């Protein structure tokens, strides 16, 4: 009791003392009050210390639970606001103010940083999981259609390759290396791609499928707009990327490939705020290929024929090839630059308007965005309109209601191609320059197809969600979330008669998709004797999902003017009528629980458990189980560390997590049955002899370990995170093609195992002192990832898929190629089989003997015949190391930000080069010729050259010298890319006040600025997942943008 009294007296004295001093100085006193909020997430900050500076410096107040403070201080005194883990803020008080509101910024990677685990907020020091947070501010000023591309190079371990420039499409995203070795699609190697293993996105607490409805890989039917393309970067408050099993375990099996949490802004300002930002940007195509034009092309082809052609070629075929022999014909006497017809710069714009405001009891936010980008390939583009609104209502301290309403429309123009690949355009851009340019009379069908197909693809999304939080008892919280998400996609494409065999056609597609989601949770936390803090939480999730897609195509419309009616069967042989493409319905139920404990925030223990069941997995053993555990040691809180004052914090963490998931579905386990008509007058129902039922299809397990070290020294001058991980994936499902003697085409086998291990790190350095006029920050991150295939189905050692080989004991995806030893300089260099006296030849059945000027492929099996058996494992299509860097310079209100990313050690097949060499060897074709003078190719006997002779066109059919699958075209695809350069200037706030504007900021941005690479092709990043540089992919444009941000 006595101590209580003493404190009170002491406090009273403390309160009176400044008054006494002030009065002594006879300075007038003013009352200042306001709210302290966090600049990153705009949330109010309780517990912020307010300190009076000057000769009588002392702490005079702390903010209350609503972030409010009130102080009475002398005029012209200085106040400092500070809080653990944030920057400090100083202000001079000149007059009494009612709303001296202060915003403090998080220090990067601080221990008090808010992180989200299984939909619950916690602070980083209480969690052992591995995650990286990106603030929304890092994603500004760059106009891109999907925010995913901006995350490139920002998160160690998240490998994003922006490998398409197609507006509205996603590149490839891999978290911590390969987790699924399934390669699908593609009759040729260039068409093959990895099965997408996208991380799970959770936007404002609602899990979302990042893939567009109906999307699978490259060839996307339907409008296919990814939900990520419909979120404006300006609306993003922060993104947290969860990497290890402990962090992701509460998201269940869907989080197996990583979880990315996106939090959008919420209204906080007491005064309504209006923010506008706009970008005007220009996309420019990369340097196009030099091409021989007009006479040069004709002369080149004729010389080629005269040199190597047979008697028949010279005397018969050449005179009958008018584009070569009839140089006077007006039709063939051209020098058309086809690439210019299809590729060109475009001018685009983007606008974003946000309105937010409210108080602690009620706040709201509305964000309206418009994006319009025309692709650099003719007749392609992406447009979107999106509205994202949310509001919070807190009628009392116990109840809180949060609701979101989102509506958006995305429109994609795919041109004639199917999307990512513009094969039609590439074919046309390769047309002979002798052909006339497109005009009313002389266009060919393909060109009209590419330029004049009318394409109306739109994707509409409506999402509503509602979250209710209730604080039942002290420390006990209940929460319930319901959301409904629906997508409608339509595609209408009209091909005019001139582009389709003189009959117009029309294609109509529509799909719809819905998700109903519900989550209910209960959590309880308590601190015992100020040392033992623990929390228990549990929640369940329910999904109801469905989707369906229809398409109809009608050909031979009466004319270009009558489009439709669809469904009428004009040409019954070719019209496709209509039909259901897809129909799915599924349900899922999950239960999850977490237990967290810490002792004085020094020793942290996290335990989680989650069980998922889905209607896909059959009824017998539907649950997939995800346990995880983590420990963390916050070392700087130990007494022995107290003396090491230069350490801000230092934490060691270790986690373990496991996921056991039933693989496959009822069809994979029990087979699919189908009626097949009648036999002998009796009904037949049989099994589909496609996938053999696999009743032994067990559970796939994935076990991962993660160790990490986080730290910060010298008052935040250097902060760092390091992670080391090991992940073992066992019994993964892989489609295994079966031999004839099985009768079925394939089995969903779950005998694939692989391991991944790697290291990740990020270091951020404040290069100059905190109070320096110039601020310079540097951040570098990188990840090394290795994967090893440890088991394949059927106990086999290797499986070949096109030019990719899965080989046990090696990296999972290796290139399987002919090894090119060189080019035969003379005929005498060709090896001769001493047994038969025959020269090395190509293929088993032919007389295709190699000769001077042909490539020398290594004859692995020693039979002097080059067949597919002579291929060998060479190269790895997956990168060894990847990461990024960023550096920011600030001086007064000027800012310069440069970000980049890099990929190290990855093998690329330069298919663009091989096709260029092939094109030089086709004189009778109506294709352009790309000059090959710059290449070292074989020209005559005795030449030691790098490339075989492309001019001798007769060899291509005999030995196929420019096959893609040879080591000659495999190159190192390492690259360093300057992603963005942003220069910004903010106008002085005081001056702006007079204009009634709170803020005005201008920026100039260059995006995809430059790429440095030993790779000889155009762009080492613009290649397929499996490292094929397709010359007909969608080139990545360079973008220049001018942006303006206005705060009203």
């Amino acid at each position, binding site marked *: 009791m006595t101590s209580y009294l003493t404190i009170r007296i002491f406090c009273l004295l403390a309160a009176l003392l400044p008054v006494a001093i002030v009065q002594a100085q006879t300075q007038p006193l003013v009352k200042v009050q306001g709210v302290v909020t966090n600049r990153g997430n705009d949330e109010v900050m309780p517990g912020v210390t307010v300190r009076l500076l000057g000769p009588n410096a002392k702490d005079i107040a702390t903010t209350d639970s609503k972030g409010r403070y009130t102080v009475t201080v002398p005029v012209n005194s200085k106040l400092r606001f500070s809080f653990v883990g944030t920057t400090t803020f100083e202000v001079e008080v000149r007059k009494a103010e009612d709303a001296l509101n202060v915003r403090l910024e998080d220090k990067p990677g601080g221990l008090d940083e808010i992180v989200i685990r299984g939909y619950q907020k916690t602070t980083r020091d209480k969690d052992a999981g591995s995650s990286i947070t990106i603030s929304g501010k890092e994603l500004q000023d760059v106009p891109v259609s999907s925010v995913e591309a901006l995350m490139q190079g920002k998160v160690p371990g998240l490998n994003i390759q922006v490998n398409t420039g197609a507006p509205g499409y996603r590149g490839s995203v891999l978290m911590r290396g390969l987790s699924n070795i399934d390669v699908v699609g593609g009759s040729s190697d260039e068409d093959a791609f990895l099965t997408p293993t996208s991380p799970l996105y959770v936007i404002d607490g609602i899990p979302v499928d990042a893939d567009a409805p109906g999307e699978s890989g490259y060839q996307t039917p339907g409008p296919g707009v990814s939900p990520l393309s419909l979120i404006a970067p300006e609306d993003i408050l922060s993104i947290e990327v969860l990497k290890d099993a402990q962090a992701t375990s509460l998201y269940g099996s869907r989080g197996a490939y990583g979880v990315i949490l996106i939090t959008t802004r919420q209204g906080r300002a007491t005064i309504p705020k209006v923010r506008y930002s706009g970008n005007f940007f220009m996309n420019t195509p990369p340097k196009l290929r030099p091409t021989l034009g007009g006479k040069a092309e004709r002369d080149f082809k004729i010389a080629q024929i005269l040199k190597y052609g047979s008697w028949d070629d010279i005397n018969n075929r050449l005179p009958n090839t008018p584009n070569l022999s009839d140089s006077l014909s007006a039709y063939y006497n051209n020098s058309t630059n086809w690439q210019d017809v299809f590729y060109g710069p475009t001018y685009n714009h983007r606008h974003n308007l946000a309105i937010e405001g409210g108080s602690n009891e009620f706040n709201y936010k509305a964000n309206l965005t418009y994006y319009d980008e025309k692709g650099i390939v003719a007749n392609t583009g992406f447009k979107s309109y999106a509205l994202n609104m949310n509001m919070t209502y807190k009628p009392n301290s116990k109840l809180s209601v949060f609701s979101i309403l989102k509506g958006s429309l995305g429109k994609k123009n795919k041109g004639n191609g199917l999307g990512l690949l513009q094969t039609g355009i590439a074919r046309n851009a390769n047309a002979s320059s002798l052909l006339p340019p497109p005009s009313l009379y002389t266009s060919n069908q393909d060109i009209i197809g590419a330029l004049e197909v009318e394409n109306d693809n739109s994707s509409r999304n409506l999402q509503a969600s509602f979250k209710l939080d209730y604080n039942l008892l002290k420390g006990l919280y209940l929460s319930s979330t319901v959301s409904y998400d629906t997508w409608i996609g339509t595609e209408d494409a009209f091909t005019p008669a001139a582009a389709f065999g003189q009959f117009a056609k029309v294609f109509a597609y529509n799909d719809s998709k819905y998700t109903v989601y519900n989550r209910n949770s209960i959590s309880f936390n308590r601190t015992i004797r100020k040392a033992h803090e623990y929390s228990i939480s549990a929640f369940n999730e329910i999904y109801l999902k469905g989707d369906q897609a229809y398409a109809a195509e009608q050909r031979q419309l009466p004319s270009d003017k009558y489009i439709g009616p669809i469904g009428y069967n004009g040409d019954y042989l070719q019209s496709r009528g209509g039909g259901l493409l897809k129909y799915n319905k599924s349900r899922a*139920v999950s239960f999850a629980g977490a237990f967290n404990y810490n002792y004085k925030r020094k020793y942290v223990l996290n335990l989680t458990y989650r069980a998922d069941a889905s209607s896909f997995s059959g009824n017998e053993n539907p649950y997939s189980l995800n346990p995880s555990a983590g420990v963390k040691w916050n070392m700087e809180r130990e007494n022995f560390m107290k003396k090491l004052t230069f350490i801000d914090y230092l934490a060691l963490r270790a986690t373990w997590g496991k996921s056991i998931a039933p693989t496959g579905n009822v*069809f994979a386990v029990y087979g699919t049955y189908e009626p*097949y008509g009648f*036999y*002998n007058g009796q009904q037949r*129902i*049989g099994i589909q002899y496609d996938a053999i039922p696999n009743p032994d299809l067990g559970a796939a397990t994935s076990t991962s370990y993660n160790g990490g070290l986080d730290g910060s020294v010298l008052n935040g001058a250097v902060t760092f995170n390091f992670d080391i991980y090991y992940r073992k994936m066992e019994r993964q499902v892989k489609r295994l093609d079966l*031999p004839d003697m*099985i009768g079925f085409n394939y089995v969903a086998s779950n005998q694939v195992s692989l391991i991944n291990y790697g290291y990740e790190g990020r270091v951020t350095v404040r290069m100059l002192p905190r109070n320096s006029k110039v601020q310079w920050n540097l951040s570098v991150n990188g990840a090394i990832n290795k994967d090893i295939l440890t088991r394949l189905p059927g106990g086999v050692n290797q499986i070949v898929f096109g030019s990719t080989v899965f080989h046990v004991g090696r990296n999972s995806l290796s290139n399987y190629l002919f090894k090119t030893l060189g080019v035969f300089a003379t005929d005498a260099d060709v090896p001769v089989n001493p047994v038969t006296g025959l020269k090395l030849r190509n293929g088993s059945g032919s007389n295709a003997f190699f000769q001077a000027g042909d490539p020398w492929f290594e004859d692995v099996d020693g039979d002097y015949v080059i067949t597919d058996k002579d291929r060998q494992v060479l190269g790895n299509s997956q990168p060894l190391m990847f990461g990024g860097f960023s550096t920011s310079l600030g001086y007064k209100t000027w800012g310069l930000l440069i970000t980049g990313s890099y990929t190290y050690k990855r093998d690329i097949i330069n298919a663009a080069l091989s096709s260029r060499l092939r094109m030089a060897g086709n004189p009778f074709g109506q294709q352009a010729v790309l000059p090959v003078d710059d290449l070292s190719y074989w020209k005559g006997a005795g030449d030691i050259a790098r490339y075989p002779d492309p001019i001798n066109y007769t060899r291509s059919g005999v030995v196929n010298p420019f096959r893609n699958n040879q080591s000659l075209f495999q190159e190192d695809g390492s690259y360093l890319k300057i992603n963005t350069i942003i220069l910004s200037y903010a106008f002085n706030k005081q001056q702006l006040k007079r204009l009634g504007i709170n803020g005005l900021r201008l920026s100039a941005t260059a995006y995809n600025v430059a790429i440095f690479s030993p790779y000889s092709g155009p762009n080492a990043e613009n290649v397929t997942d499996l490292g094929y540089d397709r010359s007909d992919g969608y080139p990545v444009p360079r973008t220049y943008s001018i942006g303006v941000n206005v705060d009203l």
Partner: protein
Amino acid sequence: MKKYFCSVLLLLLLFSASSCKKFLLVEPIERLSGNIYWKSQADVEAFVNDLYARFWLKISGAAYTSAAGELRAGEIRPSIGGSYNSNDANRRRAYDFFGVNDLRTAIDPTRAWNTSTGANQMNIVSMTRWTEFYQVIQGANLMYYQVDKGVPGVSNEQAAAYKAEAIYIRCLTYFFMVRLFGDVAYYTNAFQAEPLGREGFVGVLNKCIAELQAGKNDLPLRYDDAVFRGVRATRGAAAALLMNMNMWNAAFDEGNKSKYYEQTAALGEEIISSNVYQLVNINDISRVMLGKSEEGIIEFKESVDAGGTYNKFAFAAEMLVAFPEKAQAEGTYSHAYYRSTYLEKIFADQTDKRRSLWFTNMLRNDGIFSLKKFAGPVSPKNFPDWAIILCRYADVILMRAEALAELEQDEQAINMLNMVRRRAQAQDYDITENLKDAIFTERSKELIGEGIHYYDLVRTKRILDGAWTSAPLTAAQFNSGGWTWPISESALNRNPFMTLNTYWQ
């Protein structure tokens, strides 16, 4: 308060756990999954039908009966050259290549008979492909597995019959493959997905014999519904298949041949004494060829009336009949004929009714030759609505005769032989004839054009003797597999254990 809250929570959890399974059950409406199949006898019936249909589709989809069973014997020539040419001469040249055992040319994809499309596609290449045979085998294995697990509404007795039927279908497929390819990959478990190598065919057939012998008596003796006569498994069909397998093994497993002959004789006796089958009047023999007759034992039949379709090359008879046995749209003349020297030799008995009733212009060696044995009402498909007959009663009688002769039970053998001769109103066996040769010749006569002759030549090794065939093989050719078919190279894919037939490499 806390207590109340906890109990509510507990109730909620209980409720959600119990209703969870129900909630998760989404019946796919667009596809039928295996876990909701096999729920009634009708499901099993529909599945059996599918298995027979797949076997039918495989053997009717290509020229199995003609190319594999008849043409390779070398007695048939295409009607090209001479006065009455086939209207389809180019394609029919293939027959000569079969006749000299040049199967490589016959399956050459660039040849006219392989490049045709639609109804004129002979699909000879497809005969080398295994996949469809193994689909039937996998299906049979799956059916056995499912019925064994129990199907609601199927009694124990019915289940036993279905299981025996699955075994029967599997054995029939293996036997058919063995005759074509020699060694095959053998498995009986459902869901076989691991690749296997080939296994000696004698052993394969022995396994088939053992399992079919065990299940045979679970099969019905006959079906009440005439629709199933001949086309579904019966005790008689299983016995006839067992006889065939025994006779095949007797030829290649010489050490144990008497055992095989004894079994054949006993099984033949069983079929005869069951009184289910009978030899029809010689005037009605063409009715037998249409299927579902009193004489048919193992048949495949897809009636045009029931909406069936088939490849005309499925039937050996297709090339051997001339108008009016076929529609004039198919050409007036037959596409092929038997060499007159051969027919003169086997039909030496002038009183034999088969000479007069079965042939038109028997010895003409050109397109007005017709095998009237296959006459019948011409269906909309331009041919009589034939069945593929793998075994009929006369075949069984003669097989038994052969086995008995090998066992030197001549008297009984002669009785059997005479049963067939008497139906043809031919002369009885004469003691001057060599009994075994007489039985073989009798089979050649009785089963002419039914796709069995070449297998008989191989089985009795008469293929090695120029006296018996126009296309003899040397012993070396025979031993290295000259009697087999080439196997599609695709069989090697993804199967390290697989080998092809070396003779054709």
